[in-house]
């Protein structure tokens, strides 16, 4: 039911139950927020979104106050301005002011708010609650001195990811966001998905940066530095340079990589096509030979760490395929090294990923199959943008360039890996043709696209029967599917799981902010590219055919087994 009210003198009609914050947005009135997180958290903790409601004694937090009929709301009174400013001044009184050297400098919500509210002096000084810097994880860096206790990270970790690696500990001035017993984040059941780093409004949680290490490798004349980038990166990197969400910047990104001084520019998409061949063959083998089903995808390292911690008894369900960038890393130091006549010990592989968990993944002891560290450094999309800016490259003015051979060619099936459901769709395109020997006419599987938490589909495949598949994104949804498997209620053949909401386009290493609208736009960019590519099925990729002929032999063959597949480690849930 619609009700009418007035905001800043302007009459407006909104649906009953709407928050004052959302109602104001509809009336084009901007109310500043800090702890509020669309779709995830509205708790009224930071007291920044205060508004005056006529007849109410106290100011109300707009994010948690529903509108009422006939309400008269003011968002811009002297009292409101002073109260908001006071709230932020109190937060600043406990802040370390390392803004100039902070990884979030110019991307910090607290900084923006202080500016927006016109805070020009620090009225309150005194003790600071302090905190520690936790650099235990190769993926996530936590600086608790900077934490403002907004609890966004706690909520996203608990409600969306069902992990709860962090929680508020203690009370009052001693309150801090930490794991139990104040242990290091790398020692607890953290999946390194990095969703906390996406939602942290300040510099308290960021990715572990490896920008300096990568520059050092580039400037080292003895090193041959290879870069690869994941499909979701090209759909989001533009946002860091002012392009609207959903702009594909593939060509400029490659030109930027060359300008930065990388010696070869490969595409993780090439390895995504390879993944489909390996994983698709593995699936058909399991179906025919009665292997463990449902088989679950293994491209998302946050998801891998999740199942290792929380469901180690189900590890046999995972495909043994490495994630695509790890496959490419192993091939760069074997197949490519030989082809190009470069000593693999001099090759440095850098992966630009939408992901923080891949930083953890490339440091796993299993990932040395080339005889060297298969991938040396993982950079997030955000870090790569920082590198481009540091190098003074005019991104917009760059020409569109192409990937390098022999690992640069890709199909539409690979490019949609970046969106939830993409791996499934790509696998179905290939599995269908391989299993039936017939051409799949309609390659688009609409049932596995979109942002529904868990998607299901049944695909009839002659010779096998109905193939039942499921797709989930966000670890909370993955947990639901795993519980179904545990109870024996999951009669699927194949499941795709992505750790992050929306899949890689919403990954923990992507530009901020992100919400469902932005996730949808980024995914749309990938689906559009897919629709326009000549090859849309992984097994049609000429470079893939070539690498099997020249080097790998056959999917699941001995070389593949050694370089492209892996094993998993049961971990403790505490």
């Amino acid at each position: 039911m619609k009700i009418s009210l007035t905001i800043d003198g302007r009459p407006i009609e909104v649906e009953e139950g709407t928050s004052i914050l959302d109602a104001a947005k509809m009336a084009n009135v901007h109310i500043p927020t800090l702890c509020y997180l669309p779709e995830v958290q509205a708790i009224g903790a930071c007291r920044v979104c205060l508004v005056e409601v006529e007849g109410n004694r106290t100011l109300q937090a707009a994010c948690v106050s529903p509108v009422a009929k006939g309400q008269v709301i003011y968002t811009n009174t002297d009292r409101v301005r002073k109260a908001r400013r006071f709230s932020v001044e109190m937060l600043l009184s406990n802040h370390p002011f390392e803004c100039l050297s902070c990884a979030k400098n110019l991307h910090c919500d607290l900084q923006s708010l202080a500016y927006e509210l016109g805070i020009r002096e620090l009225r309150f000084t005194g003790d600071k609650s302090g905190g520690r810097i936790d650099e235990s994880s190769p993926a996530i860096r936590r600086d608790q001195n900077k934490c403002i206790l907004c609890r966004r990270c706690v909520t996203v970790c608990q409600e969306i990811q069902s992990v709860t690696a962090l929680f508020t500990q203690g009370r009052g001035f001693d309150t801090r966001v930490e794991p139990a017993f104040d242990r290091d984040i790398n020692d607890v059941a953290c999946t390194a998905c990095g969703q906390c780093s996406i939602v942290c409004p300040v510099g308290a949680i960021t990715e572990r940066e490896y920008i300096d290490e990568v520059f050092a490798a580039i400037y080292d004349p003895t090193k041959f530095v290879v870069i690869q980038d994941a499909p979701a990166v090209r759909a989001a990197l533009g946002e860091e340079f002012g392009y609207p969400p959903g702009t594909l910047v593939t060509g400029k990104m490659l030109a930027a990589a060359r300008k930065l001084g990388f010696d070869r520019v490969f595409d993780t998409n090439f390895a995504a096509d390879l993944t489909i061949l390996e994983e698709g063959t593995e699936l058909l083998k399991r179906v025919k030979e009665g292997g463990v089903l449902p088989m679950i995808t293994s491209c998302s390292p946050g998801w891998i760490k999740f199942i290792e911690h929380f469901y180690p008894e189900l590890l046999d369900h995972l495909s043994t395929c490495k994630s695509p960038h790890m496959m490419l890393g192993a091939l760069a130091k074997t197949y490519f090294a030989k082809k190009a006549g470069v000593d693999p010990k001099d090759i440095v592989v850098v992966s630009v990923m939408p992901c923080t968990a891949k930083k953890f993944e490339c440091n796993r002891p299993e990932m040395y199959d080339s005889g060297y560290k298969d991938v040396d450094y993982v950079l997030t999309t955000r870090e790569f943008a920082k590198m481009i800016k540091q190098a003074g490259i005019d991104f917009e003015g760059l020409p569109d360039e192409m990937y390098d051979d022999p690992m640069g060619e890709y199909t539409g099936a690979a490019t949609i890996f970046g969106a939830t459901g993409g791996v499934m769709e790509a696998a179905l395109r290939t599995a269908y043709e391989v299993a039936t020997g017939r051409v799949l006419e309609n390659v688009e599987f609409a049932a596995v696209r979109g942002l529904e938490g868990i998607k299901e589909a049944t695909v009839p495949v002659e010779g096998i029967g109905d193939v039942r598949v499921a797709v989930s994104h966000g670890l909370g949804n993955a947990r639901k599917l795993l519980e179904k498997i545990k109870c024996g209620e999951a009669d699927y053949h194949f499941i795709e799981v992505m750790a992050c909401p929306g899949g890689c386009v919403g990954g923990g290493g992507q530009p901020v902010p992100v919400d469902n609208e932005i996730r949808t736009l980024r995914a749309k960019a990938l689906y559009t590219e897919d629709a326009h590519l000549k090859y849309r099925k992984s097994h049609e990729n000429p470079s893939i055919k070539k690498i099997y002929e020249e080097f790998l032999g056959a999917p699941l063959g001995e070389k593949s087994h050694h370089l492209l597949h892996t094993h998993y480690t049961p971990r403790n849930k505490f």
Partner: protein
Amino acid sequence: MSEEKQCQCAEIQEEELYPRLEEVINQHRGKGEDLIMVLHKAQNLFGYLPRRAQEMVAEGLNVSLNEVYGVITFYNFFSTVPQGRNSVKICLGTACYVRGSQEVLDKAQKELGIKVGGTTEDRRYSLDVVRCIGACGLAPAMLVNEDVYGRVKSPHLVDILKKYE
């Protein structure tokens, strides 16, 4: 609950208490909303909340250990260190404070070699502060177990503590 208190007095070895905790947890299995109630019972059982008990509660109620610890550290009632045989509580209420209880507290921390909230290694004493025990006329006041001491001067403290084995 009275039954659990008896156990504490009987000085049963900690190891023997875990099966009893399991029984408590069984009545609340999978119910995260019962967390505080279960922690309450667990603390009555052990006198504090050892890490293993926290892990059992987390597992049994299907709550993250990190959340369990968050709840424990939020509420003053819960303790993660074992309680001593004798509970020493110094009043830091307004009246006691202005009559010098901070000095008594400093002395107690020095004598016992522990901080507020701590327990001596021999588990003879635990030290805490309280905010007013209703004995303002006797300020500064302190409690040892159920016994109230008034007009405590720091030199007296050692003599008081000695009385309690």
